[in-house]
């Protein structure tokens, strides 16, 4: 049974939009949340780094670590007009739409404060230089905090649909690995030794470890090592809490009420990446439930590029009695259609191959190349209609 894309916004509680950078993930997440709200759900979109104009439209121009509800008037009226209740595209009463932009650092700070055994322990960690770098710069922290925030909204918010945009990484897989990277850092064997009380540390730390630390200090300076040691000492006793939390957050990802949507573009590299992602999700016991392909070129009929090229060539080498201007115009038009048919055919082949590879149940929907940017509710509604009304189900 093929999943219908409507099911995602009608029935699921969590929808996670994954994909490589530059494929329209943030926009897609906003569209899905908007469509959920339109259908009467209390929806929230968690964005990571929206383009400025989209953020302005969503009313989240600044980092707001808590969801802000968007005035119904702004999103429910299209072009300033309330929709006709008799219309299929009408906005259902009761739907609500909220948005937030993830603030990685304050999410992490809150996590530390909640897990610390005392306010003093929390403060020691929050003040530590190394911690400030972890919360600001460690690869994967942003991804992990997006999941942490998701979990918090899931448990504590009243939302019945949460759509999460994931950070713009070159590799969609990074999102799945994020909690592991953080726990791996906290579990690091060499640095765990540092967390032992000073004397025990001296006893256990082998000559090799001491040499190692001296070397590191030689390269980056001893202050840095002192910061790291102070951090791991301050963090003592909290690793277990963090690990448990990572597990709980991970469980939410494999819950049946959670859906993964893979956003991609029909380019070969994006498609390959999407294939890897599908395989990885399968390993983790999840599946891609919808594949949304953005920036697909319009099909413009069904003629073969070769036939069109032949027509263009025939017109170019037409006998002298054929009017020149007319023949030149017509051959240019045939060549142009051949170009668009060529890319449209190849793109559709890629999309079908990807869907076959990912599994027959996956919903496949595509959004044609738009002549304009999507950065307000009018254009978000337009994409929603394209997405929900032109679903291809083979």
């Amino acid at each position: 049974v093929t999943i219908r894309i409507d099911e995602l916004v009608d029935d699921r509680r969590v929808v996670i939009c994954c994909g490589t950078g530059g494929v329209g993930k943030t926009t897609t997440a906003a569209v899905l949340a908007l469509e959920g709200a339109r259908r009467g759900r209390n929806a929230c979109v968690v964005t990571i780094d929206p383009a400025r104009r989209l953020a302005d439209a969503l009313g989240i121009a600044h980092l707001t670590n808590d969801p802000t509800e968007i005035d119904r008037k702004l999103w429910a009226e299209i072009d300033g007009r309330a929709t006709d209740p008799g219309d299929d595209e009408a906005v259902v009463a009761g739907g609500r739409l909220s948005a937030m932009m993830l603030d990685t650092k304050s999410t992490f700070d809150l996590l530390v404060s909640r897990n610390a055994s005392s306010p003093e322990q929390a403060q020691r960690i929050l003040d530590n230089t190394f911690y400030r770098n972890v919360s600001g710069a460690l690869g994967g922290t942003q991804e992990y905090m997006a999941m942490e925030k998701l979990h918090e909204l899931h448990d504590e918010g009243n939302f019945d649909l949460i759509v999460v945009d994931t950070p713009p990484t070159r590799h969609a897989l990074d999102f799945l690995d994020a909690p592991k990277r953080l726990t791996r850092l906290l579990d690091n064997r060499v640095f765990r030794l540092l967390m032992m009380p000073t004397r025990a540390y001296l006893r256990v730390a082998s000559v090799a470890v001491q040499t190692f630390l001296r070397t590191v200090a030689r390269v980056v300076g001893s202050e840095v090592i002192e910061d790291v040691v102070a951090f791991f000492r301050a963090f003592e006793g909290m690793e277990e809490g963090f690990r448990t939390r990572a597990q709980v957050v991970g469980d939410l990802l494999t819950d049946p009420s959670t859906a993964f949507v893979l956003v991609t573009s029909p380019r070969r590299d994006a498609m390959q990446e999407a294939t890897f992602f599908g395989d990885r999700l399968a390993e983790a016991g999840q599946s891609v439930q919808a594949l949304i392909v953005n920036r697909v070129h319009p099909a413009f009929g069904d003629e073969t590029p070769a036939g069109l090229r032949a027509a263009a060539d025939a017109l170019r080498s037409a006998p002298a009695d054929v009017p020149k201007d007319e023949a030149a115009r017509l051959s240019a038009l045939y060549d142009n259609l051949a170009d668009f048919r060529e890319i449209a055919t190849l793109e559709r082949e890629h999309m079908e191959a990807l869907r076959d590879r990912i599994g027959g149940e996956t919903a496949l929907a595509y959004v044609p190349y738009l002549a304009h940017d999507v950065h307000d509710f009018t254009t978000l509604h337009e994409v929603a209609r394209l997405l929900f009304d032109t679903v291809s189900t083979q």
Partner: protein
Amino acid sequence: MEVAEFCSTSRVVIVAGKGGVGKTTVTAALAITAARAGRSVLIVEVEGKSGLPAMFDAPALGYEEIDLDPRIRARFLTPDAALVDYLVTHGMKRISKRLAASGALDVVATAVPGMKDILVLGKVKSIEETRAADLVIVDAPAAGHAITFLLSARGLLDAVRVGPIRKQAQDVVSLLSDPARCQVMLVTLAEETPVSEVVDTAFAIEDRAGVALGPVVVNGCFTPLPVPVSANASAILDDGRSTGRFVSQREADDLARAAAFLEERHALQNEQIQRLRELLPLPQIELPFVFNPDITRPQLDTLADAFELGVEKL
């Protein structure tokens, strides 16, 4: 400007831009342009699973250089491998393997923000110094990370007061701030958001990182039809009748819609190119849209032709 002159403006070109604008494609097109002008080129990829080798029908990149073309080589450069290299050349060979393998690099790199970027750029600097190629092209990380990548050396100078890493950062800053050694080539699409972002990135790179900017490459530009046409089915049917070519109503509609689409994209694109020109006083090189989602050598050659034309017009 002559292509040969352009290709020797600086020894390192860092190609940067938002994800999805075609940085890797532009990297490859620039490499072919330089190779045609007789330069030897080394492409350095800094992020995994690059689409570059597939464009040249070559196997995946590793830390060792591979040949993509008689004059173009490519390699991959990871912070881990760059660190091992660094430690080995600084007499710390014994410790190097373990530092990378134990995952301790993650800890150290977190303690020193920008450390990974410095290691990679430091390696680029030593490649440049040994004149491993006439032109070194770095396919930079995507989007905002490109700015962080280029700012890392200055940031590290503030954070680390002593030691060899500081020296490394100083060397990287002198590479980046010398236009004869290094410049950044920004890539964008002629669309609203990519244009806005490339303008912000350009100012950030010039003001904060102090790196010279080369021309902006506007990728994926639609070329207008060679003759003016009317995107109108009945006009097309008329042309069919007068040329004796049978055109069905359906075909006329498809021809008209495709022509109208091109016209519309072209008009929007010109608007954005104009906007970019007003917001960013840098010369532009336009590369044509390729009607194929899979870029391979024939498409790269077409793009290199366009690149040469663009350079000659500078």
